């Protein structure tokens, strides 16, 4: 199994996709941090926390990574060769899930490091001090890492279920941008806070979710549940479907 996980990592790092996504993510995090830092009072901890909260938001990038780890193999028909080498498909999906979740966490850690560094440099240059001892800062950064890892795992499940790369990415983004909002208007916040993106915002401690979202640990458990659900569906569908 370790070999298969290592193999998935080899697949990820031998194409440019991962490195392009990393560059996009770090750029978004840096630009995102500049927003609060240029518009909010620099002597308050909430400003630094708001800057670092962008780590979680870039879990969209991790989601796309997870989707392309599976659907990309169907798009380029490399899935045939993958299953020829490892005909036990459940093991392939499990290895993809593990490797991609770890890489998603890695993206989150890289993002958190860059975000904290940018914020620290900005505050220091402006003559302020970084609120290193503020627990909420670390909860936000750590939550962002967890959110990235969970969305990478969910992406693997979505990619295995939908298999068409463009449709899977479009449907996921539509879900995040539209569907949860529409459900919110129809069914209200009592329902939407249990949906994946809203749970993610609670894990990543986005300011909007702190007031009426789930508690961070509960939301993290819920996200893990979604990841397991998608992964189980992915294994079941992947073992049954023909590879044409």
């Amino acid at each position, binding site marked *: 199994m370790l070999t*298969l996980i290592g*193999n998935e990592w080899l697949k990820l790092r031998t194409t440019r996709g991962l490195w392009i996504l990393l560059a996009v993510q770090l750029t978004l995090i840096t630009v995102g941090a500049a927003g609060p830092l240029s518009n909010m009072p620099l002597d308050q901890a909430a400003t630094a926390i708001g800057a670092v909260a962008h780590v979680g938001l870039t879990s969209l990038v991790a989601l796309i990574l997870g989707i392309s780890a599976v659907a990309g193999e169907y798009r380029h028909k490399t899935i*045939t060769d993958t299953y*020829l*080498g490892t005909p036990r498909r459940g093991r392939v999906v499990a290895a993809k899930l593990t490797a991609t979740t770890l890489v998603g966490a890695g993206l989150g850690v890289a993002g958190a490091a860059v975000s904290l560094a940018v914020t620290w440099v900005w505050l220091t240059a402006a003559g302020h001090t970084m609120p290193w001892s503020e627990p909420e800062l670390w909860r936000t950064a750590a939550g962002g890492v967890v959110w990235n890892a969970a969305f990478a795992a969910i992406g693997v499940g979505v990619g295995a279920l939908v298999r068409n790369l463009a449709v899977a990415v479009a449907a996921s983004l539509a879900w995040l941008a539209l569907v949860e909002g529409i459900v919110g208007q129809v069914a209200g916040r009592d329902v939407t806070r249990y949906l994946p993106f809203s749970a993610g915002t609670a894990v990543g401690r986005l300011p909007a979710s702190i007031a009426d979202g789930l508690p961070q640990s509960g939301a993290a458990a819920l996200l893990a549940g979604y990841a397991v659900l998608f992964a189980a569906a992915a294994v079941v569908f992947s073992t049954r479907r023909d590879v044409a």
Partner: protein
Amino acid sequence: MASIDISVRGLSKHFGPVRAVHDLTFDVPAGQVTGFLGPNGAGKTTTLRMLLGLVRPTAGQALICGRAYPDLPSPRRTVGAVLEATGFHPGRRGRDHLRIAAYSAGLPLARVEEVLDEVGLSDAAGRRVGGYSLGMRQRLGLATALLGDPQVLVLDEPANGLDPAGMAWLRDLLRERAATGRTVIVSSHVLSEMAQTADRVIIVARGRLTFDGPLDRLEAEAGSLEEAFLRLTTDHDDAAAAAAAR
């Protein structure tokens, strides 16, 4: 009597009302090149995909060295397969593609350089596959199939995209594999190529077996492989096609 490495029994695949493959039974012996022939849509690719565990049969079974493909203990050391010229990530380098296949099969990375040399891709191995010609992709697919030095080679239309020199090279490779006691099954609709390469032929039409035997027997009966092929694959319910075959 040569040993039998591939054994297909009552194999069927139905897509709704369409019988893509229906009740196919044949054996593929070792030490020979077996041509797997049929017109487009005859069910060749579906049969090979069932043999390789990629498509689930509606009925029947296909065994390689006595086991279903997913039950083989080390598939790449037993079977090498080339199914499509397009099964590569265009952004990945040729050498990395082979390293991934070797790594997952527990094969030494030295094999990657050996097969690159064998198929003549050593100089191009550092380039991304997106820049490869169709012939180069076929060679990369063959290199992947040869990684585990397998007993059985399964090739689906491997001649597509190969130039005359490449065809001659492929023919020599297949003959050499067969001469060392390996099993080779090659699907094709290029009859002239098969006439020069195959020892035996299996012909399918509309998902059913229409001939299974030595190439020279077929040619002796019909005069040429082409005549035999047309006679064995023509739908006699179709008056125009039947007339063309006569």
